[in-house]
């Protein structure tokens, strides 16, 4: 019997053989999330005359499996901005909780100011904050695996739209799309709003129609997408968020002409 305290509670060497301590290795580089697990696909958004429209479908995929089909990926912030998340869903939840806390603290800070809308964080401030947060996490080698779009208004009350990704890279444009949308939806949106001037001429209805059209194209061509989606319109009056939209007027006629996959004999 081995009476040394070091041996207490361990498998007995005389029965199981000496323990292979190499399994207890504590050296080596720290590893954090190296790939996303449950993911959301594209988020798309376009500016118009009085605000911004944003949309994302309601799917969270586990690899190629359509795992969760009622996932809301657009989050309002202080009812003045909208944040849309692509990428890892658990990191999105972390950020959502963090932003909830931030929003509550913000409203304590400004609850008695004469014009709370002016003094509270606007979308431009929020985007700057998120970009610092994402870049810091990248430098910790523990990135939050998301691409985020932020929509709302800047400090001069102009429509604001910008993105930040898991490396802290920021980007802004009259229309933005993350993930597959950058390939499939961005060219369509540029046709309507290539410049800020174009975007300033778009009406709300036109912008919503462009976004809905893009969501349809994404559902046609992106295998990790869904026909149910959320759409948010941010204007000076606040955020109108609809979380259970269905793609309308789909036409799969084009699929007949696609050759070169599956069991088809060309």
């Amino acid at each position: 019997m081995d009476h040394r305290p070091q041996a207490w509670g361990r498998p007995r060497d005389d029965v199981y053989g000496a323990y292979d301590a190499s399994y207890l290795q504590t050296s080596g580089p720290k590893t954090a999330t190296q790939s996303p697990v449950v993911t959301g696909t594209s988020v798309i958004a376009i500016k118009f005359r009085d605000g911004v429209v944003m949309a994302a479908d309601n799917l969270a995929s586990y690899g190629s499996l359509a795992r969760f089909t009622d996932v809301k990926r657009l989050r309002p912030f202080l009812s003045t901005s909208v944040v849309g998340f692509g990428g890892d869903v658990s990191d999105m939840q972390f950020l959502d909780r963090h932003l909830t806390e931030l929003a509550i603290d913000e409203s304590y800070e400004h609850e008695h100011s004469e014009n709370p809308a002016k003094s509270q964080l606007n979308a431009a401030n929020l985007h700057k904050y998120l970009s610092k947060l994402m870049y810091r996490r990248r430098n910790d080698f523990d990135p939050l695996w998301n691409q985020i779009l932020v929509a709302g208004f800047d400090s001069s009350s102009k429509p604001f739209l910008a993105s930040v990704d898991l490396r802290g890279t920021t980007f802004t444009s009259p229309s933005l799309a993350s993930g597959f949308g950058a390939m499939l939806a961005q060219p369509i949106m540029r046709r309507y709003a290539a410049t800020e001037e174009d975007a300033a001429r778009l009406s709300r209805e036109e912008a919503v129609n462009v976004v809905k059209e893009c969501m349809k194209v994404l559902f046609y061509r992106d295998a990790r997408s869904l026909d149910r989606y959320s759409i948010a319109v941010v204007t000076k009056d606040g955020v109108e968020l609809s979380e259970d939209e269905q793609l309308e007027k789909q036409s799969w006629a084009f699929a007949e002409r696609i050759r070169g996959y599956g069991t088809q004999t060309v």
Partner: protein
Amino acid sequence: MTSIGTGYDLANSIFSPDGRNFQVEYAVKAVENGGTSIGIRCKDGVVLAVEKIVTSKLLKPNANKRIATVDRHLGVVYSGMIPDGRHFIDRARDEARAWRDTFKTPISTADLASRMGGYMQAYTLYQSVRPFGITAIIGGFDSTDEPRVDGEVGTGPSCGAGGKVAGKTHGGPFLYMIEPSGLYWGYYGAATGKGRQAAKAELEKLDLGGPGGPSLTLEEAVKEAARIIYVAHDDSKDKEFELEMTWISGPDGPTKGLHQEVPKALREEAERLAKKAQEDDEDDEEEDVEGKEKMEE
């Protein structure tokens, strides 16, 4: 109260032989000098109001608010020592945040009252501290919807029970009052501060308790709250005061479950009615006096 504590009032952690903690009783005295605050729990929400004595003409009107928000759905008003109240609110906000960190859901009014009651009671136990010189009224509307979890993304199963109990209702309006001893009860209507006696008498006349729940609506409660603060102020007419009022409704009501200041237009209307009610009362009294004089003649 006996005028002296005969040596038993010098420290917090010592009882007098007849079982009293004099420090706590003195703290209650501090509350009794503060501006009146009241809370009314009605059918579809809670109203909080405070009589804010204007101590100096150099203070900006309608600035320096006395009613604070905790989380989004809770409001706290207090009478007594204002710095103590500010600290109380800081602590309440910390508790609400800690609750969210742990449970990922907003703290209920009852749980916040319990936590803060415990906190105030701890200040009656030790030599090194003094009790809080405030009585706080906590009002809140706990969500009547299925409680949401922070960061949740989906809505759960669309068929089957999904862990939900059919017919179970959640939340509603709640009102608690915490005294310097740490004692707290849930109330239909609560009043504290200088004018509490008059205010309580008025609150008791309202239909707040009834077996089917209170019939008073939120807008009626706002008007009653304004009237009660004006009635309670009566005795110290020489000083000017401001009326500060906040309300919390359910998700279908005017504040959508949030604790907010009563809109200016509604508050001014309530104040107008309160002043009018008071003038009518005074006229009646004068008539009574005149009537009596005539009788004597």
